[in-house]
């Protein structure tokens, strides 16, 4: 029987357009990669995504700002098994939500949905995962950003669970 586990990797981005090469060692008991999650944490003052100011404004779609792109591959295997933009908080959590009051307006922290991992089904081919992260935050924020990226890789292990 397979059991899911997670390995985490964090790195910091501080320059516009910075590219970071990643090498993440897979545990020996990792059998298959089953998911990827990413998250960012700002290390400088940045305004949070604004909540809709009025009922009419809640029908305006706002897109989550992209801070970078992440690509993952395994040594010895051609191509990439995962490529996805890394985005900040959901800016449209208040879309169509006219429940806002002066003191309680839709925000990702209070109204957000479950954030689930991007599912994968990648057999383990090597002991390492190679990654490439490229910062693209300037186009969305108009400023250099200093932030930490957290990468969580879900994998399956066939080792039995402790009793």
């Amino acid at each position, binding site marked *: 029987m397979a*059991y*899911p*586990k*997670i*390995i*985490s990797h*964090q790195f910091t981005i501080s320059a516009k357009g910075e590219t970071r090469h990643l090498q993440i060692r897979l545990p020996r008991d990792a059998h298959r990669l089953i998911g990827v*999650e990413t*998250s960012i*944490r*700002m*290390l*400088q*003052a*940045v*305004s*949070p995504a604004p909540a809709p100011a009025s009922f009419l404004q809640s029908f305006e779609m706002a897109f989550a700002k992209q801070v970078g792109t992440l690509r993952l591959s395994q040594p010895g295997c051609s191509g990439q098994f995962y490529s996805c933009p890394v985005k900040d*908080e959901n800016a449209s*959590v208040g879309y169509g*939500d006219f429940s806002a009051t002066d003191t309680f307006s839709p*925000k*990702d*922290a*209070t*109204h*957000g*949905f*479950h*954030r689930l991992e991007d599912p994968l089904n990648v057999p383990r081919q090597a002991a390492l995962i190679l990654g490439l992260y490229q910062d693209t935050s300037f186009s969305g924020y108009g400023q250099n950003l200093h932030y930490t990226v*957290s990468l*969580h890789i879900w994998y399956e292990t066939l080792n039995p*669970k*402790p*009793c």
Partner: protein
Amino acid sequence: MKTRVKKRFDILVTQANKSFSQDFELDKNITSVIGIAISSDKDDLLYFRGSQGVEVNKEELFPGGYESKLLMAGVNVSPNGKYYQLDHVNPGNGIVKMVYEDTDDGRTSFSPYRVSLYLDCIAE
């Protein structure tokens, strides 16, 4: 007869950029843990600043540094869907360990807050 019970464990976060580790004990009649959720009295601080590692019976469910925002569910989520599904975790010795870490985020200012860990369990 098996029943579903929700257990809640609290950690008070009193200082910024610190780790808070606490062990909790499940009731002896709990036979498996099937869901986990995390909440706070200050959702924005938990969302932007929080990360935690969670162990049950010394088995790591989530490693340290796993952001709290990845386990949170807001008011738009059905009550039946707020818990993150686990695969019938055996409680073993019944000890739940959570190491919560508060880290500065440029979008928030720190003030003391409470972090609550909820476990959806099956009890005999």
